[in-house]
């Protein structure tokens, strides 16, 4: 068994962990980052490909939250976490949510102005930009449809750097914050799973880990640390805390953006390499409309959802793109690290209101795509009507049921909520876990509710804020 001693231990290397490691290493702290997944070169596999799924996704693909219906979700499991596999869309936390959450959860120093200041700092370290030139056809379709209907829409910025030819490179954590952390002296250990935290009274004194070597050998590793930041994401952060005997308000209140999709066929080719950057905000904050990954396999998956034969459409797959309607859900879920199970059990309960909102989102998305010039719409609903005109969309209202809707999500939050309201939170206003003086959470688990937009920007701003508070206190 090996032993390692560090000042600050960071568990997880995604948007929260990487920001934490960079901020604290730059401040002169001795930082060690443990990442359960491998270190995969950012250019090694094409984005959204099957190879990427195998190399960088937890469980090599989607897994499922139990409930009625089951909701599929994905997470990154590699150095850089989900920032390595997401679309890179960047959206600051909406001001009204900061106000609402500050009040509901009694979060100190959580004003929109304060968060914007931290977002400025994050953006100063990344490249946050809009696409130079015209948007790709799949994204232009969203803009065109919304404009025709008089609906609000926006081109989101992305965490992308563009070269002189306009070629974009996603600024994942393995390309940005983690190299910055390394340059400031941090150590990153990939392929290292934290089995449990070692507690003594109100302190965490270290972590028990299992490290897998590139050759396949496995060793036990004990890490002793003065301070521990758990940044494993909204599923694996509460799971680790629970495995370590820390359960109060940990793992309940999980939130997500349940998403329903349409494969839309156009009379012209569309792009398939990236994800559309336009979003329709007409129905925000409760329903958001946007575009998904549309490689050939994803197009086929979306076409197959209705259960109707789709070979004829698939022959025309280069004219098909996949779009979604995502909701801010009233429902919530739980993460449970059951004894004897390596993976936590995740559940999620949709409300009837959520289902109604999903149906509304699907119909609005259909209206938009028809306005944009789509000629055929395949909803992700078993037995769903393949729509060609507005009149066809009416049947979707009754078809989005628990038995027939095929839902997924990529955004999970809120499983260790922050704030001074101890009845509703698992950590204080700055992520310190209640009852422990040197244990902090610093990832999407802290966000009190689903933000209705990609949470990466909010996670990074909040993580920066919490690091400042930690450094000021220490």
């Amino acid at each position, binding site marked *: 068994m090996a032993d390692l001693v560090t000042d600050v231990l960071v568990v997880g290397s995604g948007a929260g962990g990487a920001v934490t490691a960079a901020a604290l290493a730059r401040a002169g702290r001795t930082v060690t980052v443990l990442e359960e997944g491998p270190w995969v070169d950012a250019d090694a596999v094409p984005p959204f490909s099957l190879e990427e799924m195998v190399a960088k996704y937890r*469980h090599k693909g989607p897994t499922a939250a139990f409930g009625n219906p089951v909701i599929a979700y994905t997470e990154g499991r590699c150095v850089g976490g989900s920032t390595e596999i997401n679309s890179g869309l960047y959206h600051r936390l909406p001001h009204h949510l900061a106000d609402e959450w500050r009040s509901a959860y009694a979060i100190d120093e959580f004003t929109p102005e304060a968060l914007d200041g931290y977002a400025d700092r994050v953006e100063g370290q990344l490249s946050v930009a809009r696409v130079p030139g015209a948007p790709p056809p799949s994204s232009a379709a969203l803009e065109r449809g919304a404009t025709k209907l008089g609906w609000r829409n926006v081109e989101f910025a992305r965490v992308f750097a563009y070269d002189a030819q306009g070629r974009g490179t996603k600024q994942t954590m393995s390309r940005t914050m983690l190299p910055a952390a390394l340059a400031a002296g941090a150590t990153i250990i990939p392929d290292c799973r934290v089995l449990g935290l070692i507690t003594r009274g109100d302190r965490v004194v270290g972590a028990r880990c299992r490290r897998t070597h590139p050759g396949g050998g496995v060793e036990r590793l004990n890490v002793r640390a003065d301070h521990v930041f758990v940044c494993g994401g909204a599923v694996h952060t509460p799971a680790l805390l629970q495995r370590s005997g820390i359960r109060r308000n940990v793992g309940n209140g999980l939130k997500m953006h349940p998403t329903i999709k349409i494969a839309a066929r156009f009379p012209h080719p569309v792009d398939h390499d990236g994800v559309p950057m336009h979003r329709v905000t007409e129905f925000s904050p409760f329903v958001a409309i946007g575009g998904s990954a549309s490689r050939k*396999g994803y197009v086929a998956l979306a076409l197959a959802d209705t*259960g109707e034969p789709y070979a004829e459409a698939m*022959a025309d797959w280069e004219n098909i793109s996949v779009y979604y309607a995502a909701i801010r859900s009233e429902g919530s879920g739980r993460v449970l690290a059951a004894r004897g199970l390596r*993976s936590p*059990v995740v559940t999620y309960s949709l409300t009837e209101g959520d289902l109604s909102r999903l149906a509304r989102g699907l119909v609005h998305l259909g209206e938009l795509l028809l306005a944009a010039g789509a000629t055929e719409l395949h909803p992700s609903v078993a037995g769903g009507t393949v729509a060609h005109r507005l009149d066809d969309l009416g049947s979707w209202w009754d078809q989005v049921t628990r038995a027939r809707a095929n839902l997924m999500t990529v955004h999970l939050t809120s499983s260790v909520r922050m704030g001074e309201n101890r009845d509703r939170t698992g950590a204080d206003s700055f992520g310190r876990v209640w009852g422990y003086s040197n244990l902090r959470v610093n990832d999407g688990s802290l966000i009190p509710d689903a933000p209705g937009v990609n949470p990466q920007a909010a996670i990074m701003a909040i993580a920066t804020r919490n690091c400042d508070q930690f450094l000021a206190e220490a």
Partner: protein
Amino acid sequence: MLWFEREVVGALTESPDQPLRSSVESFVDGTLRDMPEHLRAGVVGESVLLGTYVAGLRALGRMAADDPAALLDRLDAWEASRIGVVRSYVRLMRSLVVLAENELAPEGAA
């Protein structure tokens, strides 16, 4: 991968191309192997139950053996089942096969 899972993957795979069929089966096998253990346990349980049911139908002569089309009909019926876990089973297997078959097909293949 259990025998019935292999049979389901074979029935759902449309391409006659043997290397592609093998690649699809290998991908599905790897994905099932890497699932969270509680989900995998549920899928194994369903595979055993549904596989036994199909074997029973075949033994009684109510379903053709070695006929992927007959199995496909059965999978279609299960996908509309009133029992959620049965629907989910078919959706899972179909999703994995559809994704893999279309992503692993050689460039330019139909």
